[in-house]
């Protein structure tokens, strides 16, 4: 062990946090705080669907500060979440599963896909924009791991 650098040369600080649940029937969005740039490395969230039959259409998004779409990630119709299902979405940089959905038991679904490489400025948002959510559907266990820089 010679001249080893013991600090992360990529710079930035690693942060890992959870978001509060949105209201029932509402999507969630995380806004990059002022004074930072964030590289979202992983996000996970759980959707508990009510028993109401609805056309729930999974969609993850990145918006710029004006609300314009910068990225959309749809899941295909075969992988939609259904009435009475609990669906966990786990998206991360480097994931090799795409549009992946696995029904572990009858009412429990695991979904994976790739987060793109990203470096998001303050005011950008990342989160969900599902179509067809029922008023009683509930997002919870929203967790994010990121690398952030002060700018």
């Amino acid at each position, binding site marked *: 062990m010679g001249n080893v650098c013991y600090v992360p040369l990529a710079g*930035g600080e690693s942060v890992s946090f959870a978001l509060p649940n949105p209201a029932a029937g509402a999507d969630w969005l995380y806004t990059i705080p002022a004074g930072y740039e964030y590289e979202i490395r992983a996000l996970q969230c759980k959707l508990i669907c009510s028993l109401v039959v609805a056309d729930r*259409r999974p969609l993850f998004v990145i918006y*710029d500060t004006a609300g314009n779409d910068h990225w*959309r990630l*749809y899941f295909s119709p075969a992988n939609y979440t259904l009435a009475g299902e609990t669906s966990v979405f786990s998206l991360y940089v480097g994931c090799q599963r795409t549009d992946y959905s696995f029904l572990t038991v009858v009412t429990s679904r695991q979904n994976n*896909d*790739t987060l*793109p490489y990203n*470096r998001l*400025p303050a005011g950008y948002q990342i989160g969900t924009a599902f179509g067809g959510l029922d008023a009683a559907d509930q997002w919870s266990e929203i967790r994010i791991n990121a690398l952030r820089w002060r700018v």
Partner: protein
Amino acid sequence: MGGNVCFVPLEGGELIDVNVPNPAPGADWVYTIPAGYEMTLLHTFYRLVTDANLPTRYPMFNLWGVDNFDRVRMKFGTFIGPGAQNNFSLALGSARADAYTRNTYHDALPMMRCLTGERWGSATSNLQAGDQYSLIHFLAVRWRV
């Protein structure tokens, strides 16, 4: 946290959020790296609405060098007919390849640091006179050179 942490991005560069003006109907959209900069495209989103003319449109995303020859061609396998609205969501690091879901094309962008005068944008075969590109946004890292 704590210790000898560098809190600034060591890759340098500044993030630049660009809204590209709509091109004229029937034209592709193209962005040219301005003088004094090099840029890496992180992600882009845009929309194509086709008119009622029948020919099949073949969508493609390209990056061109200053010599006008393309360095990257990304042809999509799902073609577009008349009267359709399609979105394109392309991102560095996406694992989706030539994927088409809910009228949206997904694919990965190349990791390139493009030079002043190089270009990226759409290159659509059989684009019709009333076809319209819109909602063209991208985020990139740029360096002053």
